[in-house]
């Protein structure tokens, strides 16, 4: 009898143990893969850090603000590598792109979420999302073959001939039209759908009660949006803009095809320039020597760090607002 009693207990506890083991093993297993994601990020950091060792040793931090980028070594001057033209190009092109895409993207989001007639809401939203899915090289293709010549002929040249006489930033002479202005516009076009889609989603999540309060006070439709909906969704919209910024910073193909690829720093937006991404894209496979290579990898590292910082800032913002609305402040 003792045996009979003992046996089932042993069996059930071993099943329980097995189950526990099974659960733990599974948890560990999936955790491992999830940690791989972290590993990938770390890998990017490590690879770019190591790959840029040579140029970092040579220049230190000054690499970031040196203005001359000349990979060609001649008898008269050694090759010099300064990242500033690339960094400047990235910052400027992203800034201008966001200057355009931010307000326009938010406006599109407002239209889609608040003002659009129900019947066309879905198809229109889909079209905007489609813009986001088009590969960047196709934007570049269109930019080079269609928009670029149009821009050069009807926008860049007239502007540089007239206003450009007064404002150095818009000065000519405009040659191919490739430069910061053209690239920024096309990058803005690429970033638009991101900002618009996120704005739309965030606005649609605003509870209707907020709108009704303002309506009952006799507000016009725009006033309802401006005074009740937008403030409520402010954090989300900023998040969307930051995401758009991230996209703009990393944009490679359209930028490479439209920026003109010149490492000289020019004052005018209509003259060729370069961005970090396009510099790497155009030079890495034909690098002259290991120093050249490491300089390019260093630029990749800089780009990655900027993206990292941007993501952290965005996360912080989300964390801030989720701690509670407005708190004790108005």
């Amino acid at each position: 009898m003792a045996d009979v009693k003992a046996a089932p207990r042993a069996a059930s506890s071993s099943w329980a143990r097995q189950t526990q083991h099974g659960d733990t093993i599974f948890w560990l297993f999936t955790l491992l893969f999830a940690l791989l994601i972290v590993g990938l990020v770390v890998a990017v950091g490590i690879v770019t850090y190591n790959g840029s060792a040579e140029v970092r040793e040579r220049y230190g931090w000054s690499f970031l603000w040196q203005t001359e980028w000349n990979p060609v070594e001649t008898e008269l001057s050694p090759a010099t590598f300064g990242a500033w033209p690339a960094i400047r190009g990235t910052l400027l092109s992203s800034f201008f792109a966001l200057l355009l895409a931010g307000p326009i993207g938010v406006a599109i989001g407002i239209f889609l979420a608040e003002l659009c007639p129900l019947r066309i809401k879905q198809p229109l939203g889909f079209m905007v999302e489609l813009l986001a899915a088009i590969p960047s090289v196709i934007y570049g293709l269109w930019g080079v073959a269609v928009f670029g010549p149009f821009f050069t002929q009807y926008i860049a040249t007239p502007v540089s001939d007239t206003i450009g006489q007064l404002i150095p930033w818009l000065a000519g002479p405009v040659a191919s039209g490739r430069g910061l202005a053209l690239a920024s516009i096309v990058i803005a076009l690429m970033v638009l759908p991101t900002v618009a889609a996120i704005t739309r989603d965030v606005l649609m999540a605003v509870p209707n009660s907020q709108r009704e309060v303002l309506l009952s006070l006799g507000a016009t439709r725009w006033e309802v949006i401006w005074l009740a909906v937008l403030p409520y969704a402010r954090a989300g919209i900023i998040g969307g803009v930051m995401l758009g910024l991230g996209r703009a910073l990393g944009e490679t193909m359209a930028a490479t095809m439209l920026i003109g690829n010149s490492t000289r720093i020019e004052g005018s937006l209509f003259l060729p320039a370069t961005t970090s991404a396009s510099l790497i894209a155009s030079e890495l496979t034909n690098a002259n020597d290991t120093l050249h290579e490491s300089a390019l990898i260093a630029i990749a590292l800089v780009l990655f760090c900027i993206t990292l910082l941007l993501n952290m800032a965005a996360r912080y913002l989300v964390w801030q607002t989720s701690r509670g609305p407005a708190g004790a402040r108005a």
Partner: protein
Amino acid sequence: MSIQTNMGNYAGRAAADRTLRGCTVLATALAIIPLVLIIGYVTVIGGSSLSVDFFTQTYKPPVPVDSGGEIDPTTGLPSDFGGVTLDPATGLPIEAPVGEALPAQDIQSSGGVLHGIVGTIMVTFLALLISLPVGVMAGIFLAEYPSNSLATFIRFCSDVLSGAPSIVVGVVGFTLIVQRFQTYSGLAGAVALTFLMVPTIARTTEEILKLVPNATREAAMAMGAPQWYSTLTVIVPTALSGIATGALLAFARGAGETAPLLLTIQGNSNLSANLLEPIAALPLLTYKYIESPFPAENQLAWGTAFVLMMLVIGVNLLVRVVTSRIKGAM
């Protein structure tokens, strides 16, 4: 009238309301018009270069046309090589204006893009093969186990990867694989693409798993099955179609990326299915062909872009349809 006299500022507010609402409509038009233009141009110009040859042949150098045997002394090539007139002063091709053919030249096609199609499919598929298990497992971890700071950190890393500049990912592929093995290869390209595809799959897996109704989970647990068993055999299969759409989306994204491939696979004029060697891909071909001085190749760029665009848009449409059906079924 008691209603109207009370609000002296009504006229101004009404005007502002109409104007600002109109602005949002304008903004939306500003986004839709380029979309239509881009798709239109690619379809029309690209579509016209489609032919059986286009899909079945690989790269051929531009064919000289009726050269009559004249060799240009400066370049050593027939003077109307590839349907392009060479400027005798500089020896460089004179570019034809967009959409126009050089006078009195017959543009010969430059072969097809079969190698690109094969290359894109193989490289992206390999990347998917690697990313799928990692992404799905990571997604399971994030969805099934309680949220804690580790999970938040993993999600943060996933966001960073997803938004990382694609050129940086290309640099990693370049440094890790290309330099290690001293050769450009499809493998390197696939590795680079996984950095971008894993976060996409992880996120969609997580979201779709979260959508599985709690009732299903509880039913599985009530049967006495341990958590890992019920997850694997009940919950994941329920979400299988969602995971599949995630994979599709990731595939579309990977197929459209150019920058990582630029630095890793380099491209190949011949049809090659060997992933350990340089291989071609559609976005790369688009880039190469539009930058080429030969109008015949420029034309090919449009055709390639068309194929690529159809692929991406097609997948997105498919995903949309399937997703709405899944959400309905849930």
